[in-house]
C-alpha cells in the first residue's frame, strides 16, 4: 500500500505535465505542438527558471525573497549602463556583467545580514527592498529605456543560439545543475534543509544558522542578477520595469513544485516542474487569446490551490484533519445508527 503511493507520487509530476500538454494540444492543435512554440516556452521559462534556482533557498529556510524581480532589473541596468559607458567594448561587457552580478550579491548579503542580525521577518525586508531597488533602478536609468543593441558578446547571452536551441536554456540548465548539486551533494545543502526543518535542533548540532541564512539570500540575489542580465540581453535594453511581477511566477513555480513555505521541504526538481507548468500555463493562455488581465487572476488561483492542497495534505498526514477513510467509516456508522432508529 505504502509502496504503491510512493511510486505514484514519483510519477505524479511528469503525469501532470503530460496531461497539461495533451489538453493544450487538443485545444490548440495548430499553434501549440510546434517546435518553435516549445522553444519559446523554454525561452520564457529560462528567465524566471534561473531565478527559481536561487529563490528556493530562502524558502527552504522558511523565509522568502520577494525582491528577485527588482534585483533582476537592477542588475540588468548595471550591466547595460556599464557597457554603454565603456562604448560597447568587450571589456565593458565583462565589467558590466561582473558589476551586475555584484549588485545582486550585495543586495542578497544585505538581506541575509538584516534577517539574521535584526530578526526582521524576511517577507518584510525583501518587500521593502523590492521597492527601494525599483526606485534605485529608476534613478540609475533616469526612468528611461536604455538601449544596448551591441556588441554581439552581450546580445548573444539572451538572443543567441547554440546547437539550435536558445542560449538562455543552457544557462538555466547550468544554474539548475549547480543548485541541485549544492542542495543534494554538499554539507551546505544538508545544513539548509536542517535549518529549515528545525533551526533550534540544527543550532544545537553545531550548524551556524546565521552563515547558512546569509549564504542563501546571497545565492538568491546572485541568480536574480543572472536572470536580469539574460533578460537585458534578450530585450537589448535596460528598464526599471523590466522584471516587474516576475516574483509572482518564481514563487508560483516553487510552491507548485512542492516546497513548503514553512521551510525544510522542497527540491530543485520540483521547482523546475513548477516553472515548466507556469510556462505552459502562460503559453496556453496566450495562445487561446485570453486577455492578459485574466492571466494574473488564473495564476493567483493556481498558487492558492497549490498551497491549500499542500497544507491540507500535510494536516491529513499529521492527523489534524480526518482522513477520507475515517470520514467514510463515520458516515457508515451514522447511516447504521439512523437505520437502527428507524427500526
Amino acid at each position, binding site marked *: 500500500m505504502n509502496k504503491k503511493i510512493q511510486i505514484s507520487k514519483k510519477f505524479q509530476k511528469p503525469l501532470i505535465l503530460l496531461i497539461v500538454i495533451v489538453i493544450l494540444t487538443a485545444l490548440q492543435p495548430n499553434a501549440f505542438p510546434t517546435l518553435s512554440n516549445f522553444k519559446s516556452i523554454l525561452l520564457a521559462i529560462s528567465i524566471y527558471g534561473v531565478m527559481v534556482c536561487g529563490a528556493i533557498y530562502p524558502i527552504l529556510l522558511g523565509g522568502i525573497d520577494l525582491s528577485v524581480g527588482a534585483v533582476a532589473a537592477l542588475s540588468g541596468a548595471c550591466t547595460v549602463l556599464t557597457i554603454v559607458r565603456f562604448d560597447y567594448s568587450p571589456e565593458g561587457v565583462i565589467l558590466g556583467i561582473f558589476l551586475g552580478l555584484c549588485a545582486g550579491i550585495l543586495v542578497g548579503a544585505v538581506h541575509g545580514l538584516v534577517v539574521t542580525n535584526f530578526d526582521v521577518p524576511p517577507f518584510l525586508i525583501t518587500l521593502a527592498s523590492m521597492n527601494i531597488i525599483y526606485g534605485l533602478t529608476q534613478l540609475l536609468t533616469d526612468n528611461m529605456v536604455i538601449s544596448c543593441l551591441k556588441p554581439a558578446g552581450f546580445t548573444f547571452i539572451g538572443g543567441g543560439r547554440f546547437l539550435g536551441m536558445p542560449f538562455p536554456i543552457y544557462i538555466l540548465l547550468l544554474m539548475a545543475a549547480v543548485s541541485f548539486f549544492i542542495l543534494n*551533494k*554538499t*554539507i*551546505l545543502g*544538508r*545544513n539548509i*534543509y*536542517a535549518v529549515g*526543518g*528545525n533551526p*533550534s*535542533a*540544527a*543550532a*544545537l*548540532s*553545531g*550548524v*551556524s544558522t546565521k552563515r547558512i541564512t546569509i549564504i542563501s539570500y546571497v545565492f538568491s540575489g546572485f541568480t536574480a542578477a543572472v536572470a536580469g542580465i539574460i533578460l537585458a540581453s534578450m530585450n537589448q535594453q535596460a528598464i526599471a520595469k523590466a522584471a516587474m511581477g516576475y516574483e509572482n511566477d518564481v514563487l508560483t513555480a516553487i510552491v507548485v513544485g512542492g516546497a513548503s513555505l514553512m521551510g*525544510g*521541504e522542497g527540491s530543485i526538481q520540483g521547482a523546475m516542474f513548477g516553472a515548466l507548468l507556469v510556462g505552459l500555463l502562460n503559453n496556453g493562455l496566450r495562445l487561446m487569446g485570453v486577455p492578459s488581465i485574466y492571466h494574473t487572476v488564473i495564476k493567483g488561483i493556481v498558487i492558492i490551490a497549490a498551497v491549500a492542497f499542500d497544507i491540507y495534505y500535510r494536516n491529513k498526514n499529521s492527523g489534524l484533519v480526518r482522513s477520507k477513510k475515517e470520514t467514510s467509516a463515520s458516515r457508515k456508522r451514522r447511516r447504521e445508527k439512523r437505520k437502527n432508529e428507524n427500526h
Partner: protein
Amino acid sequence: MSKDVLLCMKQVEKSFSGVQVLKKVDFEIKQGEVHALMGENGAGKSTLIKILTGVYPKDGGTFFFNGQEVQINSRQDAKNLGIAVIYQELSLVPTLTVTQNILLGQEDVKAGILNKKSMREKVLALMECYGLSLDPDAVTETLSIAQRQMVEILKALTLDASLIIMDEPTASLSSKEAECLFEIIKTLKEKKVSILYISHRLEEIYRLSDRLTVLRDGENVAVLEKDQINPTEVIRLMIGKELIDDNSHGQMRPFQPEVVLKVENLCRKGAFSNVSFEVHKGEVLGIGGLVGSGRTEILRCIFGADRYDSGTILFNGMPLPSSVLKRIRAGFGLIPEDRRNQGFVPLLNINRNIAITNYDILSKGNMIVNKKDEMAMCRKAIAQLNVKPNNPEINVGNLSGGNQQKVVVGKWMMRNLKVLLIDEPTAGIDVGVKEEIYKLIEDLASKGVVIILVSSDLKELLRVSHRMIVLRHGRIVEELKEGVVFQEDVLKAASGILGGEAVNHE
C-alpha cells in the same frame, strides 16, 4: 456523596498509545477548599487536569458537578461549568489593557459599541470584592508576572468560576509575589471558590492546602486531611513504599582523580548564580532540582548555546572555545530537554539526522558529502542503538518517541565524545528504551566520557549518577557524593525542607 462536594470524578481512565496513564482514579474536591494534587513527574497529574478541562477525551469514568452527572467534552463545557485554569504560560493578550483582558469575549456592548465606562466599573468592583489592586487601564505587557496572574484570576472570576485550577502558579514568582498570591487564595477560599493547587514546592502545599490527593503511576494512592499532611509521609506516598528497597536509592561511587570539566562561580542572571563543581574522568554527575531551578540553563551554558555573565568553565585545564560548533569539535555533545523542538529535524530521515553533527568526519575537510560513508555511519548507529524500524530513509518525525531519542543519542555516539550533557533523556519514553539508554550512558562512562545528567525522574537520577548535586533557585544546595542516597534526600534538598523530620533509611 456529601452535600458540600463540588466536583467528583469517579473511575477516570486514560491511555496514550496503549500505555495506561490513569488507572481508575477517583478524585473529589469540596466547595471552598484548597485541594492540593501531588505526584512525581509522569504520575498523571496533568493528564487528569487536561481531562477535567476538556482538553483530552477520557477513556472511562464519570464526572459529577454539584451532585449532578456532567459531560465535559470540550474546553467550553468546562468553562460553562465554572472550571477555570490558570496556566503556567499565561494566556493573556499582552497588548490589551487589564480591563480588556479581563472582559475579553464578554464585553459590554450597546448597539455594537463598547461601553467602556461600565466595563471599567465592573472590573473595579470585582477587584474591590477580592481585595486586589491593579490599574485597570495598564497595558498587560507592562505588568509583572505576578500581576498578570492576578489578571488571569480576575478573568476566571468574571466567568463565575467555582473551581480554579492553578498549575505550578509560583514557578516564576518571587517569594514576595508568592506571598501575595497566597493572600488571594485565602480570599478566594472565603468566597467559597474551590482551588485545585498543583505544585512541587512542598512547603506551599503544607501551608495552603486543606486536603491533599497523591497520585502515583496513574493511581490515587491517598487522600490526606490537613492534620495528616506531613512532609515525610507525602514524599513516601509519592515515591511509593514498595519501591524503596530496590529502585529508590542509589549508591554513590568514588571518582578518578583526573578532573575533566571544572565549573567555577558560573552566573547567569535570572537563571543561576555561583555554581561551582568539578566532573572527573568517566564520572556521571547527576543534577537534581525542581523544574526552573536552573539545571537546563547550566547545561546550555556549558555547551555554548547560551552565554553566561561571569565565572569560568575549564576543560582539561583550558578555557573552552566559544561557539557550539567548536565545542562539538572538542568532543562535547548535548541531548536537549525538548526533544521535538531541539533534538532532531522531523522532516529529515534518520540518515541525515545522524549525519548532522558529523560532517567534519564524513567530508574529510571538503565541502562534498560522501554518501557511502554517511550511509555506513547511519547503519552503524542504527545497529548500535537498535533503532526501529532500521530503515535509514524514514523521517525521524515518524518514529516513536523512544526511537527519536535513540537517533538524538546516536548522532553523538558516532563521534569521539569527551563530555556528554544529557537533559531529561527519558521523558515520555517507555521502560524498555529507558533501560537501553541507561546502558549506553554506563558504557560511555566506562570509556572515560564525562557525563552530566539532568533529570526530574529521581529513580533515573539515582540509578545512573555516580555523584549528585542538587539545585534550588539557581544555587547548589547539596552535594551527595558518598554512601547510599535516597529519593527523599534529593526531594527534600530540592524543595527546601532540609530541616524536616529525620527519615529512617532502614
